[in-house]
């Protein structure tokens, strides 16, 4: 009996977290008149709302922009974080401890302070309305550096010493010997970075004004807030569903990694 109640409560919980998404999908294929009564499935489903979204806003262009920006940021963060994490773990240089404290301190700095001056910087660099404006400020991640540094500590130093004796340069050691042995750290940093930049909205809203350069969350936001959805619920929900789809598909394949990565980032904060 106690077991039954546990399962009942857990199932109600699952419904509370999943049903709204199901409703969103269902409402996005429903005619406008049915949405206000919709509970499970619409009587006459159609893709009309989706075709309206595609007609009204360059949603596929925005999808490509988001993919491009998030991918470049993720690759950059992986390269730079692993490099700096490597230097902090295996190399000796002046100011090493100072650098580490600066990285940790910087991570605790609230972004409210830097938001305005970073925007001004981007204006002065002429990076407003460009991919660079979206990418450059995100290429370094303190959290990424810390994750790599932690992970490198678990790799035996003998491996590196052996490679050094064989005459391997430090960059080669990092990318050909350590990278294949640091897959969990790479996955964690990649998921956190990609998800973070994929879901970022405030910065794109500030930096990008040209519609053809907008990222997907930005375009959908402005579509929902501005008048172009003509207050049609179905169309807004279709746009939201299209925005949710890529990350939900990725989540369904790599669910375990998503949960692990997010949980470990929480721990480190």
């Amino acid at each position, binding site marked *: 009996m106690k077991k039954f109640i546990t399962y009942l409560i857990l199932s109600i919980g699952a419904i509370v977290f999943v049903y709204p998404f199901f409703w969103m999908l269902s409402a996005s294929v429903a005619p406008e008149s049915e949405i206000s009564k919709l509970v499970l499935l619409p009587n006459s489903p159609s893709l009309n709302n989706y075709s309206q979204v595609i007609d009204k806003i360059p949603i596929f262009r925005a999808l490509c922009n988001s993919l491009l920006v998030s991918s470049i940021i993720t690759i950059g963060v992986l390269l730079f974080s692993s490099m700096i994490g490597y230097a902090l773990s295996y190399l000796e240089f002046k100011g090493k401890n100072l650098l580490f404290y600066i990285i940790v301190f910087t991570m605790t700095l609230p972004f409210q302070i830097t938001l305005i001056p970073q925007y001004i910087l981007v204006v002065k660099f002429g990076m407003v309305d460009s991919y660079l404006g979206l990418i450059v400020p995100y290429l370094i991640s303190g959290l990424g550096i810390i994750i790599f540094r932690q992970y490198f500590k678990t790799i035996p130093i003998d491996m590196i010493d052996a490679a050094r004796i064989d005459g391997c340069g430090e960059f080669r050691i990092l990318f050909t010997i350590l990278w294949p042995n640091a897959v969990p750290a790479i996955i964690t940093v990649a998921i956190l970075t990609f998800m973070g930049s994929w879901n970022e909205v405030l910065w794109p809203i500030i930096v990008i004004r040209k519609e053809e350069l907008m990222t997907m969350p930005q375009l959908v*936001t402005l579509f929902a807030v501005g008048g172009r959805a003509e207050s049609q619920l179905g169309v807004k929900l279709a746009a939201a569903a299209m925005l949710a789809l890529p990350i939900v598909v990725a989540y369904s394949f790599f669910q375990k990694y998503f949960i692990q990565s997010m949980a470990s980032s*929480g721990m480190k904060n």
Partner: protein
Amino acid sequence: MKKTKLTPYLMILPYVIFFITFISFPVIFSFILMFHKWNIIAPMQFIGLSNFYHLFHDSLFFKSLLNTLIFLIVHIPLQIIIALFFAVMLNQKIRFIGFFRAAYFLPVIVSGVVVTILWQQLYGFESGMLNRFLSAFGIAKVGWLEDSNLAMMSIAIMATWKNVGLYIILFLAGLQTVPNYLYEAADLEGATSWQKFRYITLPMINPTVFMVVILSTIGGFSLFIEPYVMTGGGPLNSTLSAVLYIYKQGFFFYHMGYASTLGFFFAGIILVVIVIQKKFVERDA
């Protein structure tokens, strides 16, 4: 051998450049801006302490602080109670645990934009899912986003729904670190379930509680997209959040100096609040 000495500096160079350009310069520049009036286009104009004077007489600044406080008062306890409840439920020998975890975690990975657009419909006054549900039980409709006394609370509930999955996982991990012999010893002493929870479980997961409190506090001061999409800060500025106010001052009115002042003060308040919370949580353990 000169090459090996250079390599470390080469490797950290990207960070140094980044730190100078995107962290230290902005912080210093933001500090200077606090004493100036500037709309980016015209030359900067030194105005001394005017921005501070304005801030202390700005009812919208205090309104946004109050709104954030309301958000935190609803959000933090709700988050801890719900997350802890489901974590305790999951911390048993049950089947489909992977399925339940995945389901609770789904809103965490989805963009805040999606969640906000979705909840705007759920909160709808006439035909929103929540009011239809209440009506079915004969309860009067609630103005979730229309009532200025409720709107911020509604946003806090939505934020809890979005984030709580992460904290369920963190609490579950925390619960699994509590060694079993402590409970066995308590059983021998004849402790009740509540006593075991209060005197064994709670102190052991205190670090996790602290983390939830801090992350939720930072989240509260970082609210932007939720009020931006749902309410635009209204009704009657009741959902004007800290970042939304910085955004409005900076990118709507182009008051760069004043927006920087707001940024500095909000950041300072966040750090002070976190220090107080740390003292409070540690004393409570």
